[in-house]
């Protein structure tokens, strides 16, 4: 075990899985010789050769399509889509093709395919480079979607994704790439479909996703100083959503705040709130409250961006609101 940065944890996961299984191979714009736009694939082409680590043209839809065909024949391709916004270019291949392939062929196809992508904000990446679009994928039967909230998850979830025999989308966060923490060496694999309790608490449950887990933990820290005890859940998976873990926490706290980076309206929090609002109706002492981005594109200029995207302050306000008498 050693301190590793998030991006290094991704790199390690890829490297180890490629060592372990010759069927694992990488595809994407600049993933090869350049080592990836953020360095996630650094050194891998040197190590595994240009056939297994392939730079592609700017042809995202075809590249996901290639991965589908290759996965059908037993490869385990890992595609990098540089920014999550560009998922919009590959939705047909992801949704109409990959997600339905097994079902539509009556079980003939098995599709061990990973799409890695990343999102992030507060770095003025602007309207076309900062979206969190996982809610689209939550609506799609046949996909799995995870959002690693830190270096451990980055490694453990990616390894699990590569070993899974279904299409899995892994949404990393570029603003966390430089974050370091202790990450287990070697075979460290986390379950894809399970949420994790990151901090135990009694008064309010905060269910959070991706980078917002960090904000939720910071909010919980501040709130603890005010005598409020928050249970922070890292949902980890956006498809499927681990309702059970959140429900179990609600049994204790009876209050729920949901926090994600994506636009609040129509985000993953909507499904979570709707599902638990139904299932756990009689458990709730206050309305389920959601924190997410305001209903606007994400602007470039820092003060505007800050006005649109959520942070720990918004979580604190939401917690206080659900606790208000």
């Amino acid at each position, binding site marked *: 075990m050693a301190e590793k940065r998030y991006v290094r944890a991704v790199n390690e996961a890829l490297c180890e899985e490629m060592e372990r299984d010759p069927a694992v*191979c990488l595809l994407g714009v600049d993933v090869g010789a350049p080592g990836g736009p953020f360095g996630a694939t650094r050194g891998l082409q040197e190590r595994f050769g240009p*056939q*297994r680590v*392939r730079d*592609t*043209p700017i*042809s995202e*839809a*075809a*590249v*996901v*399509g*290639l*991965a*589908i*065909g*290759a*996965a*059908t*024949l*037993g*490869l385990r*391709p890992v595609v990098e889509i540089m920014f999550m916004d560009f998922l919009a270019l590959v939705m*047909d*291949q992801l949704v*109409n*093709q990959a997600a339905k*392939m*097994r*079902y*539509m*062929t*009556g*079980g*003939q*196809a*098995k*599709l061990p395919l990973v799409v890695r992508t990343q999102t992030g904000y507060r770095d003025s990446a602007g309207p076309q480079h900062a979206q969190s679009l996982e809610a689209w994928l939550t609506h799609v*039967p*046949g996909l*799995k979607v995870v959002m690693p909230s830190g270096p451990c998850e980055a490694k453990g979830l990616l390894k699990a994704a590569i070993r899974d*025999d*279904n299409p899995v989308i892994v949404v990393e966060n570029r603003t966390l790439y430089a974050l370091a923490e202790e990450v287990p060496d070697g075979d460290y694999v986390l379950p894809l479909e399970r949420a994790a309790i990151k901090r135990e608490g009694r008064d309010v449950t905060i269910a959070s996703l991706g980078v917002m887990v960090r904000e939720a933990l910071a909010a919980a820290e501040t709130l603890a100083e005010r005598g409020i005890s928050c249970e922070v859940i890292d949902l980890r998976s956006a498809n499927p959503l681990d309702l059970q873990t959140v429900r179990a926490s609600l049994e204790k706290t009876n209050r729920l705040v949901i926090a994600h980076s994506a636009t609040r309206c129509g985000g993953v929090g909507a499904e979570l709130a709707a599902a638990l609002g139904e299932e756990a109706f009689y458990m709730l002492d206050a309305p389920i409250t959601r924190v997410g981005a305001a209903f606007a594109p994400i602007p470039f200029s820092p003060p505007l961006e800050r006005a649109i995207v959520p942070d720990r302050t918004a979580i604190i306000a939401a917690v206080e609101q659900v606790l208000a008498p």
Partner: protein
Amino acid sequence: MPAEEIDRVLARRLLATMQLIRAFEEAVRDHFAARHIPGFIHLSIGQEAVAAGLASALEREDYLYVTHRGHGHVIAKGADLKRVAAEIFGKASGYCRGRGGSMHIAAFEVGVLGANGVVGAGLPHAAGAAWALQLQGRPQVAVAVFGDGAVNTGLFHETANIASLWRLPLLLLCENNGYAEFTPLSVHAAVESVAERAAAYRLPAWRVDGQDPLAVRATVREALGRVRAGEGPALVECLTWRVRGHYEGDPQRYRSSTELEEAVAHDPLRLFAGRLRREGLLNEAEEAELAAQARQAVAEAIAYAQEAALPDPASALEDVLYQPSGAG
């Protein structure tokens, strides 16, 4: 077709394949009209020589991706006629357990890895299969069949560029029937020859009479010779005639009766059988016998499909995801 001597066995096999496809699609046409078949149906009547010629040039282990108009290719590649029929009828014993229907038949056991309801979307899958073959060092090739309409999709372009760049063992086989649904080629493509567009990717390309199964076969073999030798992908454009509407029920108002008569005049079965008779390779009795065999096989397949059980509604939620055995 070059003036080499025609192999009698091969010729009959090609004719038999075409007859089987024709008989099958005529039966599908009738059962669809009689409302025994749900959904949409796109028939390849008039285009059978492409499927027969192509498949005869492939090995069983080669991989094939087809289109919404794919019955012919699936049958020619050797799929079990009963399971094809059962799929089209929406039955549990269909290749896809009734989940796909006519537009989505896949028969992995004979290398048919999928049809597609999204025009162009299967092209990169074939290239991906070819990439896997290349990586795995296997001798097979992958083939993507697509129509003239698909050539205008971005995916055609992206796929052709990557395939050429990576020298993938891929054959791009275009069935140019001059129409994308109701829109003629001249209204949808800036360049009438698909093969001509191949130069933009340094793809070697051939243009061939798609009504002649021997010509299709010879051209595909020539192209595949290069592909199998590791020289990268190739494109074959087959000029063909769609006799029926885009889908069953299409009244084809957009085509003149002269044009429709011309399409019928290009019937590949009649043309090929006539030629075989003229060259003394087939007499009328033999032709009739082959046709009868095809009808017989089709009748059995359709009867099977009609009697086969519908899927259990409780199975509708199965196989959304692959579940490793033992897992929940």
